[in-house]
């Protein structure tokens, strides 16, 4: 013990504990690292997110803002002790689980601790009291609706006990991994790092674009004995390149000679955690020569702009194009046309869990346990970086504390892989919040120009759409955005003449990638506002205009695809008719009598979204095995990032097999154990992996029934020793001991794949790019303060064509969460490269910003999805922002040409509208 440390006594969850330290350490770090209380999550270390909330003498505080020496002798309660240490804790755990209030689970411990402090002091809180008590904890998944419900449920002591029923398709099963999430036992990327692991920190560019020269690295290492190793591009055993779309792979692990965006890594240092954390990275020996960056689309397109990648002429990564009919039809006399230009900014995913994980070398293989949305893609890219075979890389996905698209791309993985491989020692990396915001992918900023024409009868005649997307320094998912948007820019409407052109343009910004919707939300902001402009020109009701043009199974899409059965967009719109008419007339009456600054508005927007990859294969494979203990092993590789695939896929398998979910044991997406279910992306897991699960379960059922040679309607029962099959009143028993284990160790195994049937798009973008589309429409009721430019979203009604609701609670959770992300996109969220790399400058909605959300699930099953189900993840977000903007237009007459509509922008627009 050196003189600066001493023994510090703490009372944690009722127990006396002590540590040796200087007392300045953050309480959050001490709880996690000294006492292994990993339920306290670290999201920002700045008091911005509240994930690390603990009770100190009964009061909630952010443990990241407390020096441990300051709470010597105080009583500390963490999530691990909340059930015993508070009056309301046990009830809250039950209620959060029952209500579906935990999705990814990263905010859940902080949320429950905050709620326990509230309920212990105020057993029957009012809505505003709940708001105030939980306002300090950010949640990015739930839209807060079910959190709110859970607190009320706990206050009423009304949490239902265990689930009843079999958990089949259609049942509101509490998520299978939910109990671990509410109790803080779920292990995220930073939660399973071995104690002996070394830690890695990246040396990153402070400039948007710069040349650099290393100084004396050996001297730096000699002068900093805590640094065990420095890594640069020279240390990469394989190729210094990765990318989520292999033909476009262009991103180096470590930049060579020049960096292309602020935060790009050039080197890494590895050492014991305390030593590495204590380093001032600005002392790393490197000389930077800042160069003029291109940060905007215009700067990147200008003739004197440098090329970010020499092979990509004009800094254009890719063009997208879909065309049918004759778009010059917009000039036809008798048509009414509207046009407009719209811009959106960078949007940050802002999941509560920053990227984290560790790697270790096992002989000539590497294992990586990290948060990810795409284990097999990680495997293949890491293999190339290390120069080894993909089979020699094992990806063990940890629980994921939110992803929303960004955790599809590699983050910590290449660094820890190269370090663990070369040092033959476990190496971990945990992104700080600024590092996460500065360097991971963003939603593409867009600049859209569009023209929509219709006949006097309101029938759409033509759409001519063009969009440029700022795709940042590397390809990431830029090609996907550029190709998906032209397919979708008609909206869910029939239009005979159509042209959509897109470009993804490189700039010196962090890569733009996948973010819930792949460009479709930006497109919808433009197109759905133009539809309202068109309705105004035609003097038609905006909802009726959409109903009139709603795409149906027998009207071709912009790519000429006929969707056939199970298209319920029109029903979504019709479901809004009643609330729409009521809300519109109430808002009009309110405004007619308005004397103060408040004006109310009601807006609607429609949505469609193709599930799965655009015209590209994206198979999933599911394996189910009957284990010798008489239970089923479900190899479920669809990474659950909070959306609920662990539960939904199990429900599908259970229904198809005819055995309750309680007989299933989940095996996760470990690439050594579980077949490839592809990426958790493109709203494809319920659909594609679900369909594979349905097929595998049906196949296994067939195998089982064949053992008894009975009909397909037979009932299967299990008792641990035998399978009992009841068919037409006759019982057949198959002793498990009579079955021999196969290579997997299973008595019976079924494995099935599914790949959605699509066709390539031709030169004009015609074809069938998706096998299945989700549809929906949102109605937003808002109130604008016309003298401050602020907007309060009061209510959202969300109608979604989900095909078949596998689990209504989880669907509602997706929709509520999507709505709130859409609200953030509309009103407050914009990342400015190089600035505000934290969660107090980058704002996401709090519980106080959440509107009341009513979900209407429309079930019109189709033959393609499992039990007729469709995806929901992205569908949920797309219509919210344009519905809010159309409501602002209804309230004020203002069109939002630049998202987000921050108070200053909106007030300026209102002033212009007023001619001021």
């Amino acid at each position: 013990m050196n003189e600066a440390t001493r023994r510090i006594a703490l009372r944690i969850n009722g127990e006396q504990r002590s540590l040796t330290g200087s007392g300045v350490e953050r309480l959050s770090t001490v709880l996690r690292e000294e006492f292994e209380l990993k339920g306290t999550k670290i999201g920002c270390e700045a008091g911005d997110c509240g994930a690390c909330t603990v009770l100190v003498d009964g009061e909630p505080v952010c443990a990241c803002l407390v020096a441990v020496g300051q709470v010597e002798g105080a009583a500390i309660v963490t999530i691990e002790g909340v059930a015993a240490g508070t009056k309301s804790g046990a009830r809250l755990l039950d209620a959060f689980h029952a209500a579906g209030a935990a999705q990814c689970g990263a905010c859940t411990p902080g949320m429950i601790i905050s709620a326990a402090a509230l309920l212990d002091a105020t057993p029957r809180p009012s809505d505003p009291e709940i708001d105030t008590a939980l306002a300090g904890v950010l949640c990015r998944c739930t839209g807060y609706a079910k959190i709110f419900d859970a607190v009320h449920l706990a206050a009423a002591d009304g949490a239902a006990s265990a689930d009843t029923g079999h958990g089949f398709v259609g049942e509101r099963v509490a998520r299978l991994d939910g109990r671990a999430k509410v109790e803080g036992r779920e292990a995220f990327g930073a939660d399973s790092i071995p104690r002996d692991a070394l830690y890695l920190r990246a040396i990153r560019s402070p400039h948007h674009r710069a040349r650099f020269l290393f100084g004396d690295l050996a001297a730096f290492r000699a002068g900093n004995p805590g640094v065990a190793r420095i890594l640069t591009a020279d240390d990469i055993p394989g190729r210094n390149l990765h990318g989520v779309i292999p033909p476009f792979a262009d991103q180096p692990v470590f930049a060579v000679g020049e960096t292309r965006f602020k935060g790009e890594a050039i080197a890494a240092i590895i050492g014991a955690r305390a030593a590495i954390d204590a380093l001032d990275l600005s002392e790393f020996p490197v000389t930077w020569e800042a160069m003029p960056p291109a940060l905007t689309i215009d700067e990147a397109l200008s003739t004197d702009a440098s090329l970010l990648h020499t092979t990509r002429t004009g800094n254009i990564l890719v063009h997208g194009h879909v065309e049918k009919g004759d778009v010059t039809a917009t000039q036809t006399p008798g048509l009414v046309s509207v046009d407009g230009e719209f811009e959106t900014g960078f949007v940050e995913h802002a999941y509560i869990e920053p990227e984290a994980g560790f790697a270790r070398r096992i002989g000539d293989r590497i294992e990586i346990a990290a948060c990810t949305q795409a284990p097999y893609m990680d495997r293949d890219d890491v293999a190339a970086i290390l120069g080894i075979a993909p089979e020699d890389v094992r990806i063990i996905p940890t629980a994921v504390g939110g992803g929303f698209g960004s955790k599809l791309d590699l983050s910590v993985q290449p660094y820890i892989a190269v370090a663990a491989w070369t040092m033959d020692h476990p190496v971990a990396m945990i992104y700080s919040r600024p590092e996460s915001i500065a360097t991971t992918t963003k939603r593409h900023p867009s600049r859209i120009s569009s023209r929509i024409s219709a006949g006097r009868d309101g029938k759409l005649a033509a759409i001519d759409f063009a969009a440029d997307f700022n795709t940042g320094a590397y390809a990431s998912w830029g090609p996907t955005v550029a190709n998906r948007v032209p397919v979708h820019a008609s909206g869910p409407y029939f239009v005979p003449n159509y042209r959509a052109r897109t470009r993804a343009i490189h700039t010196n910004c962090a890569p733009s990638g996948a973010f819930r919707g792949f460009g479709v939300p930006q497109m919808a902001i433009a197109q759905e506002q133009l539809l309202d402009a068109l309705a105004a020109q035609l003097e038609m009701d905006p909802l009726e205009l959409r109903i009139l043009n709603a795409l149906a199974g027998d009207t071709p899409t912009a790519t000429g695809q006929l969707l056939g059965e199970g298209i319920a967009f029109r029903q979504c719109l019709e479901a809004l008719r009643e609330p729409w008419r009521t809300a519109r007339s109430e808002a009009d009456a309110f405004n007619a009598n308005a004397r103060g600054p408040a004006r109310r508005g009601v807006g609607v927007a429609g949505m469609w979204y193709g599930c799965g990859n655009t015209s590209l294969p994206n198979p999933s494979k599911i394996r189910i095995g009957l284990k010798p203990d008489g239970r089923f092993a479900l190899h479920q590789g669809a990474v659950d990032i909070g959306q609920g695939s662990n539960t939904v896929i199990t429900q599908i398998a259970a229904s198809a097999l005819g055995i309750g979910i309680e007989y299933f044991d989940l095996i996760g997406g470990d690439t050594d154990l579980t077949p490839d279910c592809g990426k958790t992306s493109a709203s494809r897991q319920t659909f594609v992996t679900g369909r594979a699960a349905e097929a595998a379960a049906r196949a296994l059922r067939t195998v089982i029934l064949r053992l008894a040679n009975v009909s397909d309607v037979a009932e299967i029962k299990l008792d641990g020793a035998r399978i009992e099959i009841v068919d037409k009143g006759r019982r057949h028993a198959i002793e498990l001991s009579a079955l021999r284990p196969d290579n997997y160790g299973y008595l019976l195994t079924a494995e099935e794949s599914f790949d959605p049937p699509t066709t390539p798009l031709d030169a004009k973008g015609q074809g069938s790019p998706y096998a299945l589309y989700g549809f929906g429409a949102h109605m937003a009721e808002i109130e604008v303060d016309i003298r401050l430019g602020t907007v309060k979203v009061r209510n959202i009604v969300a109608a979604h064509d989900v095909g078949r609701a596998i689990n209504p609670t989880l669907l509602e959770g997706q929709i509520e969460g999507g709505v709130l992300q859409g609200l953030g996109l509309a009103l407050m969220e914009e990342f400015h490269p190089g600035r505000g790399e934290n969660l107090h400058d980058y704002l996401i909605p709090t519980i106080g910003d959440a509107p009341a959300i009513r979900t209407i699930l429309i079930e019109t099953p189709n033959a393609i999805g499992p039990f007729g189900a469709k995806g929901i993840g992205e569908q949920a977000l797309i219509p919210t922002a344009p519905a809010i903007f159309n409501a602002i237009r209804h309230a004020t007459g203002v069109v939002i040409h630049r998202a987000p509509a921050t108070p200053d922008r909106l007030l300026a627009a209102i002033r212009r509208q007023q001619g001021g």
Partner: protein
Amino acid sequence: MLHRPQSTAEALDLLAMEGATIIAGGTDIFPAHVDRPPPKRLVDISRIPGLRGIRREGRALRIGAATTWTDIARADLPSAFDMLRQGAREIGAVQIQNRATIGGNLCNASPAADGVPPLLALDAQVELVSPRGARVLALDEFLIGNRRTARASNEIMTAILLRDDFVTARSTFRKLGARRHLVISIVMVAALLDIDSNNHVQTARIAVGAASAVARRLDGLEQRLVGARADNAIGDIVSTEDFGSLSPIDDLRATAAYRREAAAELVRRALVELTSARHE
């Protein structure tokens, strides 16, 4: 090393050591050290007896510098101090209010410090103690710029001193941010009106924050309000010239022009609220 002195004298001795930094609530120190280790030597003044809590001293209030915003929000204070209690509830969220202190809010001297406008409007003074003794400064002398104060490196803020001259005065605080909670203010306003029995304004105090390097009192407006009828038309007295002393900037949160306009609107609303509250 974290030191927990039990007296101001002990704290001053510790503060004299190389690299010593004062900590109380920690809500500014730790966020400033996200990607680097916290300061090696912290002097925690939050447990010094007398530094936390609100004490009445005749017609004055003495708020210990280490008093938390939760303490203030829960305190039983006269209506003239409503704006201070309302401001306390707008500083971060409950997790922050439970730790953050009034003295820390002033010493951190953020232009957007929610505690400053109410305290300026209350003509607060701050007490600073150094090895050479105590001195008292008016708050507007203490705050000298964006994150700059008159505190010498060997001084500790021990208290905020407020006069309680108003029996009948009411006050209010209005904060505007881009979201409902846990948000750095775009602009905020603290206003106090003392209205006489003839329904005329006797005293007016108005301060605007986040629209200049240091929150500002609107002296001209305050003077013009004196003698005005306290009714719904009071907002009409507010003119754009009243905000000439502000120097707002464009930043991530809003444009300068917006801040100016929003400040005027918030002042009008605060005044109307204070006059209508009287008639309730």
